[in-house]
């Protein structure tokens, strides 16, 4: 049966003396009745699609509403000319997050992780990591299993869609998955993985889903940046040995509780928050009135 708590994964790891990703993979084989090779092949296909999506960016493209496009290119230019305040690696993370968010808005092929709106978070940390540290592909796939296991538990205990639980559920989950993947790639323990995920969710708790005109553009593209940067800092904290004071599964449950209390106008309805600003309403009227 699929895991319903992060603790359950850690317990399995301890009992079977296996790493985090292996527990998730074993569970997948059991759940879907597939061979190990088939599962790894499918994961490799996703990684390839993610990498290709990152390379498919074209800075001249604009979304159908015209609201987004080109920002990844602007950021990349800045990075080439100046040392960003957040450092060169983090600068790359920002570039990739913007690019993928814009690719999605411009109808390019992407990998939903866990959703299309949050598709930039995982590749934003993985692509620069792979370019800098050059891990073996098998290690990257292990990190993807790690991320998927985290996402699976969040989906079971809370939710992963903005329409259900706000942006905290969507970018928040992507950020937790990315944080866990980074810790796995960088040699952290299973415990560090779940605490990185927990810290990532905690730091985005309460984030609302308020897309202007209901489109996956504003503020979604830039929220991918915050999800990726938050994953980076959460992973670093966990690798340093810092833990979430609130037990990780309880953090996920808190996200569910906050999402349940969130007003419907803040759950992808395009009514409240940034969508409800005079500018947001004007865009909605101009675009939808056409």
């Amino acid at each position: 049966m699929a895991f319903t708590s992060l603790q359950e994964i850690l317990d399995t790891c301890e009992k079977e003396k296996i790493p985090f990703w292996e527990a998730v993979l074993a569970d997948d084989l059991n759940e879907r009745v597939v061979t190990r090779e088939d599962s790894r092949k499918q994961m490799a296909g996703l990684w390839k699609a993610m990498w290709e999506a990152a390379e498919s960016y074209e800075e001249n493209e604009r979304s159908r509403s015209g609201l987004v496009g080109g920002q990844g290119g602007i950021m990349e230019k800045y990075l080439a000319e100046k040392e960003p305040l957040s450092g060169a690696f983090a600068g790359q993370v920002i570039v990739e997050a913007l690019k993928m968010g814009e690719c999605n808005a411009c109808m390019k092929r992407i990998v939903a992780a866990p959703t299309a709106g949050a598709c930039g978070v995982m590749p934003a940390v993985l692509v620069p990591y792979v370019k800098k540290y050059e891990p073996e592909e098998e290690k990257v796939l292990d990190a993807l299993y790690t991320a998927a296991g985290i996402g699976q538990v969040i989906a079971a205990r809370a939710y992963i869609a903005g329409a259900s639980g706000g942006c905290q559920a969507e970018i928040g989950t992507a950020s937790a998955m990315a944080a866990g993947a980074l810790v796995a790639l960088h040699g952290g323990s299973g415990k560090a993985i779940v605490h990185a995920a927990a810290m990532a969710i905690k730091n985005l708790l309460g984030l609302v889903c308020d897309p202007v005109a209901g489109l996956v553009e504003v503020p979604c593209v830039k929220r991918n940046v915050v999800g990726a940067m938050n994953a980076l800092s959460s992973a670093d904290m966990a690798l340093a040995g810092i833990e979430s004071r609130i037990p990780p599964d309880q953090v996920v449950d808190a996200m569910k509780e906050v999402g349940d209390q969130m007003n419907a106008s803040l759950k992808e309805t395009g009514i409240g928050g940034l969508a409800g600003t005079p500018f947001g309403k004007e865009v909605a009227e101009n675009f939808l009135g056409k």
Partner: protein
Amino acid sequence: MNIFDILGPVMVGPSSSHTAGAARIGLMTRKLLGAEPVEADIRMYGSFAATGKGHGTDKAIIAGLLGMEPDDMRIPDSFSIAEKEGLKFTFGTADLKGAHPNSVVLYVKGKNGRERKVQACSLGGGRIMINELDGIELNCTCEMPTIVVNHVDLPGRVAEVTTMLSMLSINIATMSVYRDRRGGRAVMVVELDQEIDESVLNILQNLKGIVKVTYISTGGK
């Protein structure tokens, strides 16, 4: 949810419900038509009608009707491809009271002259549900190999089909039967654990009282 529901699908953006799901609705409608569509009148409802344009829902539905999967990179160009392939289409809105907010009705006509009316909704994550077929309400997710049988609501029709499948050693995973009224038009939706080939469909098609047999394969294109 399995781990590939969490990571994936690979899809053309921007929205799993409004783009990927919409493409799947188009593709399943094509499969239900069982032919290349030449005419399509598409009526959107709810969030599909309100934000569909910005999400490329219209382009995705047409792409699906042309046989494209949700990860087909030609989706953004589907309108011009439709023109080349001779698919004429129109868009409008529908007032479907009580329907799922991401719903659409498609009136399609195939090259063979066949017509279908399909109402479907997009449930999120690229998953869809067919809610109505030719005026008969039903529930079909098209996630497993599915046989859709249009028949006349008379005694013995369901038994004929299930007996034949059992003789062919084909296991039924789930099955539902719907009708518009007693003795009227009816539909069986039969989900299978395995893919079947055309010979099975021909056998079913020739059974008494069976109007039409359509197969929705989940593998390949």
